[in-house]
């Protein structure tokens, strides 16, 4: 267990955490304000990546691709909202689960149709493509630092928007008691659309930013979607602050857990069983964490609707 590895993996954990936050933020707001379970949020993330690849192919420039992809992702999200989700706000969660599940199946197959099943790649911008020396002996990819940085900037913007603007106040109020906000004369439909659109863009942004590091393939949104759900459940539905904290915790626990589980277990048992059991336990860690948190606080750490 070297310090270098520890530092690198901590940074990787932060990067995962920030990525999770970008996805979870939109998810928790949509949940909190509209009481809408959107399983299709993961495909927004995937779509962002695919659109970026497509626009990069057309423009040859990452930043143009980023902006165009964000716009296209937003447009697509709004179309989905208009065509499907709007009809489901008043339905019970089960129907929402089924419908958005159907959308996942449709879109996962759809991208296969359009772009084929093999993984695609998106090159990262030249200036960020190297590694820098953080400390003697620690070389870390610049792009991952960019992800961490942009994620923190987004978190700050969200914090200011939600906490210190009138629109943000409406969002927070909506997350606590949407019918009341509507009864007070606020155009709740427009609020929903804005919240939803924002969430879509955040997810798409996450997909675009991670695309240079991971491969872009059908179904890439599915696993991260569940992690995002764990994040918002631990953080408390409707709470940006909760999502931020939970995302970082989960990113760190998962990454560090996977790296060091075997080593930590070796302190207690022989190398061979440690190597077998280690990965299994590592994959369980965040779910155990979730179980403990929910056992003590069944509504998460910072639930928007008050203590349950």
């Amino acid at each position, binding site marked *: 267990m070297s310090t270098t590895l520890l530092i690198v993996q901590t940074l990787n954990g932060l990067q995962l955490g920030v990525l999770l936050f970008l996805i979870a933020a939109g998810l928790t707001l949509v*949940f909190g304000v509209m*009481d809408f*379970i959107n399983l299709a949020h993961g495909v927004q993330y995937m779509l962002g990546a695919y659109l970026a690849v497509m626009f990069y192919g057309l423009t040859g420039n990452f930043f143009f691709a980023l902006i165009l992809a964000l716009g296209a992702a937003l447009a697509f999200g709004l179309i989905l909202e208009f065509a*499907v989700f709007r*009809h*489901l706000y008043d*339905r019970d*969660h*089960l*129907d*929402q*689960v*089924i*419908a958005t*599940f*159907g*959308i*996942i*199946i*449709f*879109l*996962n*197959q*759809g991208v*296969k*149709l359009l772009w084929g099943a093999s993984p695609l790649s998106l090159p990262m911008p030249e200036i960020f493509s190297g590694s820098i020396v953080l400390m003697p002996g620690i070389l870390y990819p610049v792009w991952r630092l960019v992800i961490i940085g942009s994620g923190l900037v987004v978190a700050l913007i969200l914090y200011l928007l939600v906490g210190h603007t009138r629109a943000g106040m409406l969002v927070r109020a909506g997350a606590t008691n949407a019918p009341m906000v509507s009864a007070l004369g606020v155009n709740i439909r427009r609020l929903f659309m804005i919240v939803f659109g924002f969430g879509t863009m955040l997810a798409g942004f996450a997909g675009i930013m991670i695309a240079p590091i991971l491969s872009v393939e059908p179904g890439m949104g*599915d696993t991260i979607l*569940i992690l995002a*759900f*764990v994040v*918002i*459940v631990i953080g408390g*539905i409707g709470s940006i602050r909760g999502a931020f904290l939970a995302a970082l915790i989960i990113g760190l626990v998962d990454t560090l857990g996977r790296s060091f589980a075997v080593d930590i277990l070796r302190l207690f048992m022989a190398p061979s069983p440690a190597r*077998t059991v280690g*990965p*299994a336990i*590592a*994959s*369980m860690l965040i*779910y*155990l964490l*979730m*179980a403990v948190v*929910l*056992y003590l606080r*069944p*509504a*998460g750490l910072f639930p928007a609707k008050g203590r*349950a």
Partner: protein
Amino acid sequence: MADVALSSSSAARRSLLAGNVLPILLFVAFALLPLFAAFSAEAYLLSLVTRVMIFAIAALSLDLLIGYGALISFGHAAFIGLGAYAVGILGAHEIHDALISLPAALAASALFAFATGIVCLRTKGVYFIMITLAFGQMVFFIATSLAPYGGDDGLTIRLRSTLAGFSVFASDRALYYVCFACLLGAYLLCRVLIASRFGRVYRGARENALRMGTIGFEVYRYQLIMYVIGGAIAGLAGFLLSNATDFVSPAYMAWQRSGDLLIMVILGGMGTLHGAIIGAAAFLLTEEWLSGLTEHWKVIFGPLLVLVAVFARGGLIGVGTRLRGMLRG
């Protein structure tokens, strides 16, 4: 509607046959299929309908939870997987006797249901859905990391379960009838449970958990017990599944499979028990048919599900009831 029918016992006795036409037809159809299949593509039909029956068992157990308890479990496939892996893991150690592997399968799923149910049932609504999903994922990832048992690629099962030394499941026909018996047994068990004192408290909790508490019932306990029973029945389905496919892999408990189970129950008609059977059949048969049409059949399947969710209230049974009502004028 099922609740009021259950309570008015004299009326129920009168309409005992009438109310049960559909389930009776279903089971007669399942029972007679092998005879019909002998004249055509026997192996294919038998294996297809065997799969339908196995998933029908799992869907039944899920209907117990979502239809009668409003406990929307999005991790139910995990129990199927646990049951299947019990067979697979024991098989890898050359233990093939069903007298050992079946109780092991049931115990594994029941224990997991108990341990996770304790946590899950303290949450409500959306949290419950999410936490069951997450626990299902957890089991999935544990299975993928089980390198000695195939990990991601899964485990082939060399020998189907034997019963005290007899190769009871060896032939597809025999397996078919075993699955049929299990489905019938599971269905009857669920019917009995729902009508019992225990079941009534459980159903009452779905209607108004607060009221049940103020009458003197500790609702949590009843839900936990039902959650364990549901998990165990799905574990039985897993036991049968691994025998039917001679294979077990983490894919059996992917969260998408849990989603499939939810769709089966809703498609057929939630809260009716036989709706789950119909839904399982409709889902798997549609899947089979569509996938024969085009490689990209999921592009059709996805929107189909969306339409089901948006429009088909009460599932196929609900549609059937409305049609009957319209025909009667």
